[in-house]
C-alpha cells in the first residue's frame, strides 16, 4: 500500500517536473524572445536586445531554469509580458471555473456511463445495441459542436439555461450550477460514452468470471451477483479510465470555455497563445498539469481502496 502510494506520488511529481521542463525548453528553444513580444513589431533589434537583457533572457539557460524553479517553489509564476499582471494570481482566479466544469463533467460522466454500461451488459438485446451504437457516436462527436447544439436547443429554443457567462459558487450556488451546466452536459456526452463502453466491457468480463459461477452455485440472488460482486469487479477499470477522462476533459474544457465565454484557464491559455506571452504559457501548462496530477492521485487512492490486491500489496 505505502509502496504503491509512494510510486504514484513519485510519478505525480515527475509529471509536474516534466511539464516544467517541456514548457520551459519549448519557450527557450525557439527564435522568438520576450523582448520582441513586449516591444511589438516597432521594436528595433537593439531595443529588443536591451529588453531581453533586462528580463534576464540572455543568461545561460540552466541559470534561468534554476531561477524559474526557485520562484516556482515559492508559488511565483512571474508576470505577464503583455500587461504585467501576476500570472499566479490570475490563474488562481480562473482555476475554479475550469476545475468545477472538469470535476462535475467527470462525475456526471462516471454516473451516466456506469448506468448505461451496466444496463447494456446486464440487459442485452436491443437496449444494449442502442447503448453500444449511441456510445460509439457519442465519443466521436466534437464537443464544441455538441455544445452549440445544446445552446441552440436548451438556451435558445427552450430558454432553460443561460448560454454564456459565469457566476461564482460563493456568490450564488444555484446560479453557479446554471452557469456551468451547459458546458458540463456538453463534455458529459463524450465522457459518458467512453465510461459506458468501459463499464459494459468490464461488466461482461466480470459476469464471465469463475467466481461468479461459484456465487451462482450457492444460489446467490441475481441482483447481488450483478450489483455487488460484478459491479465491484468492474469498478477498478472504470475508475482508472475516469482518471484518463479527467485529463481529457480538462483539456476539452479549454475549448468549451471559448464557446461559452467562461473566464477559465482555457481563455487564459488562448490569450497567452495568441499574444505569445511566454511566462503565461509556462504558467498555464504547469497549473493545468498540477491539477490533473492531483486529481489522478486522488483516483489512485480510490483504486487502492477498491482493489484488495493493491491495498494489501
Amino acid at each position, binding site marked *: 500500500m505505502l509502496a504503491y502510494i509512494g510510486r504514484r506520488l513519485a*510519478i505525480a511529481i515527475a509529471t509536474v517536473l516534466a511539464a516544467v521542463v517541456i514548457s520551459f525548453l519549448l519557450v527557450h528553444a525557439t527564435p522568438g524572445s520576450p523582448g520582441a513580444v513586449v516591444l511589438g513589431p516597432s521594436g528595433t533589434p537593439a531595443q529588443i536586445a536591451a529588453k531581453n537583457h533586462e528580463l534576464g533572457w540572455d543568461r545561460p539557460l540552466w541559470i534561468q531554469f534554476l531561477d524559474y524553479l526557485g520562484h516556482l517553489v515559492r508559488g511565483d509564476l512571474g508576470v505577464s509580458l503583455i500587461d504585467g499582471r501576476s500570472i499566479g494570481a490570475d490563474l488562481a482566479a480562473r482555476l475554479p471555473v475550469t476545475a468545477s466544469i472538469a470535476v462535475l463533467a467527470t462525475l456526471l460522466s462516471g454516473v451516466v456511463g456506469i448506468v448505461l454500461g451496466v444496463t447494456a451488459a446486464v440487459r442485452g438485446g436491443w437496449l444494449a445495441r442502442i447503448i453500444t451504437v449511441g456510445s460509439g457516436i457519442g465519443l466521436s462527436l*466534437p464537443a464544441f459542436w455538441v455544445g452549440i447544439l445544446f445552446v441552440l436547443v436548451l438556451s*435558445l429554443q427552450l430558454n432553460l439555461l443561460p448560454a454564456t457567462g459565469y457566476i461564482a459558487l460563493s456568490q450564488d450556488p444555484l446560479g453557479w450550477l446554471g452557469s456551468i451546466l451547459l458546458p458540463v452536459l456538453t463534455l458529459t456526452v463524450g465522457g459518458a460514452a*467512453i465510461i459506458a463502453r468501459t463499464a459494459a466491457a468490464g461488466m461482461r468480463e466480470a459476469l464471465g468470471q469463475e467466481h461468479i459461477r461459484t456465487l451462482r452455485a*450457492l*444460489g446467490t440472488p441475481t441482483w447481488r451477483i450483478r450489483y455487488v460482486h460484478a459491479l465491484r469487479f468492474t469498478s477498478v477499470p472504470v475508475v482508472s479510465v475516469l482518471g484518463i477522462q479527467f485529463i481529457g476533459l480538462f483539456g476539452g474544457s479549454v475549448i468549451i470555455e471559448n464557446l461559452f465565454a467562461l473566464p477559465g484557464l482555457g481563455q487564459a*491559455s488562448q490569450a497567452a*497563445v495568441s499574444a505569445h506571452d511566454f511566462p503565461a504559457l509556462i504558467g498555464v501548462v504547469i497549473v493545468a498539469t498540477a491539477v490533473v496530477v492531483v486529481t489522478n492521485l486522488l483516483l489512485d487512492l480510490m483504486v487502492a481502496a477498491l482493489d*484488495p*490486491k493493491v491495498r494489501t500489496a
Partner: protein
Amino acid sequence: MSVLPLDAADEVAPEPAAPTARRRGMPWFLRRPGGLLGAAWLVLIVVASFTAPLWRPYRVDDQDLAHRLALPSGAHLLGTDPLGRDLLSRVVTAGAEPLLASFVTVVVAFGIGLPLALIAAERGRRVERVLSRSTEVMLALPLVIILLAVIGVIGAQTYVVMAVLGVLISAAVYRIMLGVAQSVRQRLYIDAARVNGIGSLKVNLVHVLPSMATVAAVQAAQLFGIGLLINAGLAFLGFGPGEPQPSWGFMIQDASKHIYDDPWLLVPSGLALALTVVAANELADALAHRAAGERTVARRRPGRTPASPADGAPSASAVLEVRGLTVAVDGGPTLVSDVSFSLGAGRVLGLVGESGCGKTMTARSLLGLLPDGVSVSGGAILWRGRDLVGLSERELNAVRGQEIAMISQEPMVALDPMFSIAYQLTQPLRRFRGLSRTEARSTAVELLEQVGIVDPARVLKSFPHQLSGGMAQRVAIALALTGRPKLLIADEPTTALDVTVQAEILTLLRDLVREIDLSIVIVSHDLGVVADLCDDVAVMYAGEVVESGTAAAVLDEPAHPYTMALLRANPHVPEGAAVPVRLASIAGAVPPPGSWPSGCRFASRCRFARDECRKPFPALPAHGSGSVRCIRVDELQREQVTWDADAVGAELETGAGVPA
C-alpha cells in the same frame, strides 16, 4: 475530444478467429455494416477532399454577397456562409488538411511507440520499467494545453503541431502495443525461432509484428479519430489555417455566431467532421471485433424430450438419478447424449474419461449452470424424486447451495478477488441459516476448522490472492458447505493442485462423506482419484457413459475396451503388482461433438473393433446395477483380452527385444 479511448485492446485477442461465412469475397473487417459504412465514408471523404480543387463548383473565396447565409439550393448545394461563399466547396476543401495532419499524428505515434514497445518486450524488466514509467508521465500531461503552448511558441503550423501530438500520444501506443508484444513473445514459437538462431530484428519482423497487426490497426483508426477531433478543436479556437482557407473547426466557430439567424450553418461542417470521426471509430470497432472473434450463437432452445416413461420409478435408495440426460449447444451439436447414472445417499460417484468427453457438462447440468447457449435437450435429473430439468432460475436457486453445492477446478479463481474470505463466507451463512453477523462469523470459523484450516482467524481476514491453491480449495469447500448441502459436485477438485495437496483434499472429502453424510459426484480424469475415493464409477467417452458400476467392479474387471485402455494407460501401480515397462496408449483422439458415429463411438480407436461395432446398439447391463456399452463384451470376456502396451510395442519395434 479530449479522450483517449485506447482501451479497446482489453477486448482484443491477437489470435485471429475463424471468419464468418457471410459476405464472402470481402475483406473480413468490411463484413460488419459499421465497418463497411465507415470505410466507405473514409474513402469518399479522402477522395473528395484531395480532388476538390478539380471539381468543386466554386473557389473557396468566391463571394456571392447577394446570397449570404443561403439555405441549400441548386446554385449552392449546401448553401452559403456569412460571406456568401459556397459551403459545399469549402467543406470538401477543408477536409484535406485535417485528414493528412491526423495521418501524420498516427504515423509519428506509431513510429515512436511501436519500436519502443518491441524493444521493451525484448530487453526485459529493466528497460521495460524505465520506458513504462516515462510513458506514465507523458500520459498524465494535459494534451490540449501543451499543444496550445506549442502553438504559442511556433505559431499555428498544423503539421508540426500534429506531429507533436503524435509524440505525446505515442505513450498510449507504446503501452497497448507492449501488452500485445509481451503476450506474443510468451508464445512458444518465438522461443523456437530464437533457439533456431534467427536474429532479433527478424524475429520481430517475421513473428511478432504480424501478430500485432490487428490491434495496431484498431489503435491507428482510433488515433486517427482523436487526431481529427483535436485538430478541429484547435481550428475552432482560431489556430487553424488562416482565412480565407476553410477548416471544419473554424467553420463551426463561425456557425456558433449565427445560431440565432442561421442554424443550418452548423450542419455541413459539423456533420463532415462528426461523420469522419464516427467512420474512423466504426472501422476501429469492426477491426476489434474480428480480433475478439465473432461469437454469434444462434439462440434457439429446442424443446426437451422427456425421459421415457418406461424407465420406471426412481430406485428407492438413490438420492440422485440421472436418466437419458442429453446436453446440446442450442441449434448446434450434442455434447452429452443419453447419460444415465444414479447415486445413493452418502456415496461417492466418479465421472471419468479423457478431456472433451462431456464430464464437466454433465456435472454442470446437475445445477443448471451450463454455459450460455448450451442447454439440456433431453432426459431427467431426479433429485430426491424431483426433476431439476426445466425448473425456473428461481426454483433452482432454492436448490443451489442448500441441497446441491459445487466446487470447481481452479480454486484460485473460484473466490471473488475483491472481497475478504470473511465476507464471502458470512454472506451465504446469513442467507442460508438466518444467522446474525457475529453468529455467522463464529460459524465461519467452525467451517474453516472443519475443512482443516488451522488458523481460521487469519484466513478470514485474508483476500483470495493471499491464499495458496490448497488453502483456497479448502475455503471453497467451506463455502460449499455453508448451505448444509446433501450433494457436492466436485469438478476436478485436485487437478490444479500439487500432488501432496491433492491427497490432503481427497482425505478431506472422504472425511466429509463420513462425518456429515454428504454424497459426492466427482469429475476426474485421474483413475487414482477414483480408486481412492469413489464407491461408484461412470466412465464417459464422447458424450456417453460407456461403462458404469461399483468402483471395485469396474476397476478390477473392466468390461469395456476403453476402460481397459484407460486403466492400462494409468501410471498408478497397485501395491504388489509389477511395474510395467511401458504404459499403454490409445491412438487417436476423442471425436469432437457433431462428428460422432452412429455405432460405437470408440470403434475408430478400439483394438478389438469389428464391422458389427459400426452399427447402433443399446447399453447392456453389467456389474450388477451398472452397464456397459460394447456389443462384443461377452466375446471379449470369453477371450480374456487385455489392452497391453506390448501389443503396440511389438508391432512397431519388431524384435527390438522388449521384455514381456
